[in-house]
């Protein structure tokens, strides 16, 4: 089930919230425990709605890691460190194997077949939705328990609720266990927070339904008939549309997750921080999908030695981390290329261009960063690397097509205003706009706007047939 569907909005959400707010107890602990159980049950239903078969996989995974966590801690208490290490490595291997088996087996077999000219039978397994997200959450728990950063969760309900929690289950943010440990047993649920949550949710669903879906339809229409004859201008419009789509779609999901979390008393980390105002690639990745890059930093980059083992080792570490980041987004070469592309750029920025960048005027740095990011999205959005290079050729007038044609001007006339509006929104223009001085007026207008957004979203959702889910390969 996705958040931007009428089943979620008009059936799942009201029912699960009513259930969630039923348990009231004078003892806070009991109330939260009951709420956790309800959260777990509704989250399982939420997942089963979209993945009726693979829910078994998730449930088994939860049980396994629950037992592993307790076991590791138990062994540490008995000072059986070696034994604990064996269990830990086994658990990490099992989790990675499950992720690898469902996500990468087809890709690996395809490549083995291609390289060695073999024909191993390749059964295309459908990818369980959200497996990349919840596997990473589980790993953060197992690793932190092993390192003694957190205590093992003794109760299965809060642990299972952490893994399955429906706000972040299928499209993130990746919540690290250490960030949320306390909230699982003790969190503040208040009217204020709930109202705050609505604002976040409305903003998120607005980003997804009003912005991402509409602009995504333009990109889809541009690439639908192949890119053989598109002009350079059309290609640029197309990739601008995709750039906007993926940001609003992804950050919209994150906002909705944060909002839903707040309504239930949780505080999630912020996942996007206006990535398109970045002035360098390093800056971009501090702002884009923060929960993923911090996961890779905490659980891959730093354990590998980070930047403390000399330049050579740092470069290797960066490349490893970024190839993995690319692979995480999908089992295709173009995703790996996309990740490696960023890895190389980050190294270049860090070691070669550091001085030059500092001397460059800010405006030019913004522009260059955005162009590079858009080139990145070409790799990300294309079906394969060949298609990506064809698209780039069209963008940079190397395909021999016209620079500008009537299609481009039609696209500009139709969507130009929307594109400008979305660009301004993406760079935080509206967020930074001077607020109306009279606070009462501002509050009333601001809240009315969010209510209006919700109503518009409902209208769009009912009439719209184009409502894609972009993360089925994640």
């Amino acid at each position, binding site marked *: *089930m996705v958040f931007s*569907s*009428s*089943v979620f909005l*008009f*059936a799942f959400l*009201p029912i699960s919230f*009513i259930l969630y707010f039923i348990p009231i107890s004078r003892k806070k602990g009991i109330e939260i425990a009951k709420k956790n159980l309800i959260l777990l049950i509704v989250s399982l239903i939420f997942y089963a*709605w*979209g*993945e*009726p*078969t693979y829910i078994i996989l998730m449930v088994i995974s939860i049980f396994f890691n629950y037992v592993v966590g307790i076991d590791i801690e138990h062994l540490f208490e008995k000072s059986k460190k070696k034994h604990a290490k064996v269990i830990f490595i086994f658990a990490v291997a099992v989790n990675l194997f499950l992720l690898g088996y469902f996500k990468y087996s087809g890709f690996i077999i395809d490549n083995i077949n291609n390289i060695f000219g073999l024909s191993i039978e390749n059964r295309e397994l459908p990818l369980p939705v959200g497996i990349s997200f919840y596997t990473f959450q589980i790993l953060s728990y197992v690793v932190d328990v092993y390192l003694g950063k957190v205590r093992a969760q003794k109760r299965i309900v809060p642990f299972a609720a952490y893994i399955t929690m429906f706000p972040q289950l299928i499209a993130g943010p990746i919540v690290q266990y250490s960030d949320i440990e306390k909230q699982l047993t003790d969190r*503040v649920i*208040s*009217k*204020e*927070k*709930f*109202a705050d949550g*609505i*604002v976040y949710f409305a903003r998120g669903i607005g980003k997804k339904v009003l912005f991402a879906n*509409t602009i995504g339809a333009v990109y889809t229409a541009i690439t639908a008939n192949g890119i053989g004859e598109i002009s350079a201008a059309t290609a640029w419009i197309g990739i601008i549309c995709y750039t906007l789509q993926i940001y609003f779609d992804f950050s919209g999901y994150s906002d909705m997750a944060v909002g839903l979390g707040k309504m239930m008393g949780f*505080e999630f980390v*912020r996942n996007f*921080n206006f990535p398109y105002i970045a002035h360098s690639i390093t800056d971009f990745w*501090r*702002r884009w999908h*923060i929960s993923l890059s911090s996961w890779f930093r905490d659980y891959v980059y730093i354990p590998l030695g980070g930047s403390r083992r000399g330049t050579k080792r740092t470069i290797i570490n960066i490349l490893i981390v970024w190839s993995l980041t690319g692979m995480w987004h999908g089992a295709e070469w173009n995703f790996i290329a996309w990740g490696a592309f960023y890895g190389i750029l980050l190294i270049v920025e860090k070691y070669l261009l550091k001085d030059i960048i500092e001397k460059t005027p800010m405006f030019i740095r913004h522009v260059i960063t955005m162009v590079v990011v858009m080139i990145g999205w070409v790799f990300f959005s294309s079906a394969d690397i060949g298609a990506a290079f064809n698209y780039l050729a069209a963008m940079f007038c190397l395909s021999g097509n016209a620079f500008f044609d*009537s*299609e481009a*001007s*039609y696209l500009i*006339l*139709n*969507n*130009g*205003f*929307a594109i400008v*509006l979305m660009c301004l929104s993406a760079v935080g223009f509206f967020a930074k706009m001077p607020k109306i001085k009279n*606070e*009462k007026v*501002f*509050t*009333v207008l601001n*809240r009315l706007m*969010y*209510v209006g957004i*919700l*109503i*518009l979203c*409902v*209208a*769009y*959702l*009912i*009439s*719209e047939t184009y409502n894609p889910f972009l993360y089925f390969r994640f």
Partner: protein
Amino acid sequence: MSNIKEERRKKEYNDLYKELCRRYDGETADQLRKYHNSVNRQDVCSRSTKPETVTAKRSRSYKNPESAFSKIFSETFLLCFIGFFFIITVGLGALYLTSPDRKYSESENRMLATAPTLTAENLISGKFMKDFEIYLADQFPIRDNAISIKTFSDRVLGKRQENNVYIGKNNFLFDSQVEYNEADTKAKTEAIDIFLSERPDLKAMIAISPNSSYIYKENLPYSLKLSDQKKDIQSVYGLFKSKNLVKLDVTTALENEKEKGTQLFYKTDHHWTTEAAYCAFENIIKQWGLDAENVSYEKLAVTTEFEGTLSGKAGVHDVKDSINIIVPKNSAGTYVVNYESQQRKTTSLFEKNKLNEKNKYEVFLGGNYDKVVISTTSHNENTLLIVKDSFANCMIPMLTPYFSKIVVVDPRYLTDNMDNIASDENYTHMLFLYNLNTFLEDTSIIEVF
């Protein structure tokens, strides 16, 4: 609640906060600081037990103190909204349960999804969930209003295209065009060629009309280039090999008619007007050299309240069209219409009650049926077999004086095949009457021939 515990908790938190600040920099740190402040604030609020102190501390601990009004307003307002949201949900739920499902959307001119059946198999495969979501969207009680809201906001943003309908100048709405594809079209023309080659004495004619997006291309949204349908129709004609098939150039005839100021297409619907059909009809009769005694035609206005399917599909309701009919004078009682599959006979080619419904174009023949047999009182030997789409419906009344029998076949709804239908009667004439979009899109032609 012990103070020592409280203190320890705070210390723990502050340590973590410092650690995080060390790790992040720039804006992220600002974010953290904000978050830090807000958590501290909540701690104060949630942990005190006396309500009086809550308000007191709350207003003091705010960095940018909001007025009490704003706080109360935003809270109650949003909570009210959520209440309202839930009520709507329950209300809609009740509506769903009590009102019967709509099977067909008149305004969108398509079948709507109906309730999926719940079986173990559907549940495990996930088919039930997918169908249920489509069902919910299709059967949503305020669906038509929702489409209008969406269109309105899109138009504010300057969008001239909605649900595959172009919103043109002068209130014209245009259906999108189907692209010409030689391979697909060839399969159709070959099937028809074989059929015709087995009946060399049949006087056959094909008349393919362009769509309004070609005839009124000057009203298309600025800078929109669509394909040259005149050329496409010539290409389709060029694929036919039969010698007994006349290919009528409807496009030129309509272009000439347009010069005279006749409205040839509805603004809100994809069909041509009766006047356009009359223009094509005159050319057909002339081409075949047919004659009838004392025939003259009269034009009657039947409605000025026509909102066509494009209007519903796009959610644009700016103007309404008028429907006229053109019929032979004193034609009443000169024919009997037999809707064979419906087992229904009538003496009129018009269904007046359709004028009270949404899709008023169905006044002609009552819509599309697989096979309709019209027997007329005309004294001649000519019999006509028409293979058509809905464009033909408004022309058929004009043809009645020239044939003693007219059989109208719509391949899209036909379960029989053309060989059977052709062998029922010894037809003298055969007419293929289509608009280009349907001819290119419809695959049933291959199946029935």
